[in-house]
């Protein structure tokens, strides 16, 4: 039960962080975040592991709106909120899993925490690296963005090949 409460609190925390760091002029973010919170809480309570992640779509929408409106784009804000939201999703999945009645040993829980921490750690490293590179670069050119996104797409193709090969 306490894991569900923790997941709900983390979800509300992520939404609150998005709202608090959004520009005051961007009023559309607040209803989107309300939708995100509602979706998260609803599917968390209903226990749908697949649909609880649907709350991420309004979060992505909020990021798009905020990024388009803000004069100065903040990579670190996106990556921090992203990590927070990812941890929220993992805790939500764990909460749903535990409500099915499984008895988790301390070792299994520690292993999962370690995996989540590894993902967050690697993401933050990449984020800090990318942010540092962007600050060195004279301007965030379209060419740089194209290189980054091209790399992402290449990684996707490699991943899908790997999955289908397995």
């Amino acid at each position, binding site marked *: 039960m306490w894991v569900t409460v923790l997941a709900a609190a983390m979800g509300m925390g992520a939404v609150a962080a998005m709202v608090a760091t959004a520009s005051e002029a961007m009023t559309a973010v607040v209803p989107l975040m309300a939708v995100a919170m509602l979706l998260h809480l609803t599917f968390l309570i209903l226990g749908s*592991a*697949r649909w609880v*992640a649907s709350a*991420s*779509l309004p*979060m*992505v929408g909020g*990021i*798009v709106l*905020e*990024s*388009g409106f803000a004069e100065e*784009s*903040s*990579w670190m*804000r*996106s*990556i921090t*909120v*992203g*990590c927070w*939201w*990812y941890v929220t*999703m993992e805790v939500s*999945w764990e909460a749903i899993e535990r409500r*099915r*009645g*499984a*008895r*988790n*040993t301390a*070792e*299994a829980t*520690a*292993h*999962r925490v370690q*995996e989540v921490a*590894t*993902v*967050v750690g*690697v*993401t933050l490293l*990449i*984020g800090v690296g*990318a942010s540092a590179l962007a600050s060195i670069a004279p301007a*965030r050119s*379209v060419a740089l*963005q194209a290189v*980054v*996104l091209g790399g*992402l*797409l290449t*990684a*996707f193709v*490699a*991943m899908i090949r*790997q*999955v289908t090969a*397995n």
Partner: protein
Amino acid sequence: MRRSATDRLIVSVLLSLAGAVIAVLVGMPEVALFVAPWLVLCALGIMHERDPNVQVQIAVVQDRLMVGDVVEVQVTVTAESNAVVAVAPQPSKSFVTSTEAIRPVVDLVSARRPTDITFEMPAQEWGTHDLGAMDVESSHAYGLFRSRAVMRQRGAIRVHPTPRQLKELIAPWLVRRVSGTHRSRESAQGIEYADIRQFAAGDSVRDINWRASARTGDLWVSQRHLDRATDVILLVDSFVESGHDVRQIFGLIVDASIAIAESHLAVTDRVGLVEFGGVVRWVSPATGRVQLQRLTDAILATGLYANAADKELPILPARALPPRSFIIAFTPLLDDRFVEAIFTARGRGHDVAVIECVPTDDQSVDAPYAQSVARSFWDAERSMLRDRMAEQGVAVAGWDGDENLDVVLGQLMRRRHGGRVRGRS
């Protein structure tokens, strides 16, 4: 084991793709960075993807136990790489009714180091139970894939009813020519006093009844009953009669038959079993602890199958139903074929006693009039059947499970003393 993608992989791929596409289309790297954790998760998961090849061994610590005891099922899990493994037992509903006992356990299995997971399941119902399947699900690195398999445990767990210590023992009318503890009607060298007669040449001096001799002035010797053993055949009714709580009735039959088998085996009688019902099976009479085990296993394995076929007792071989054996029938007296078998056995010269196993049926005060009348007819019909049996020298005593079985055996013995039994002792 069958491998499949988890919800985590589907969500991660969809979110990552959506973030990347939006970032490219609107030219905002912030969106791609927001979904970066899922991208990293996918990358790490794919890099470390390897089937842990989980192997499971299931062992039951004790496969014979009493009702209320706890069965310990030990599951030893090994894997080629670290994996989080969820193990969920799926025993039959008749064996474990508590969901708490069969909650899945999620544990970390380290590479090439066996991990033991123990399930404690309370045995709530007597019988021979199948442990059922064991659902094993291993989560691969970062939880993007999982492998699942259902392992089946071979063998059975035998749950015996709670043992009853009986003080009474039904004395048979017919005995074997083997020493035992039952009193024979013949007068010879035994323990229990039978009669006195005048001393004759060849009589032992130890048999002289000095008190009678002193009173009469002649020599008198005491005669004693021979102590003999007997063959006891437990005739178990496994006919399924619709409209009755078969399991409850058969529970009484199992309970009583095992208790009586144990008490007769304790006094060196040979005890056998004939299961007469949907199927006909038997265990030839023998003595000893092993025979008790054999009988208990056979009784617990009794299958209750509906069968409309005519069955006759004469199909049984002589080794299953030896001549002069004492038959104790355990039956609710609901099936005519079984009642006919009792009469047949009696007609063949067997000494027969019946323990009527019928659970208490409290008739409601508010029952409709038609139901009360039907019930009265039913009771009268059963009473007539008991009388007909008594006329044939078959004593019947009812047991509802609440009463002490010793009291029922006492009633049965009193009724047998008034009965007529053919044959020599």
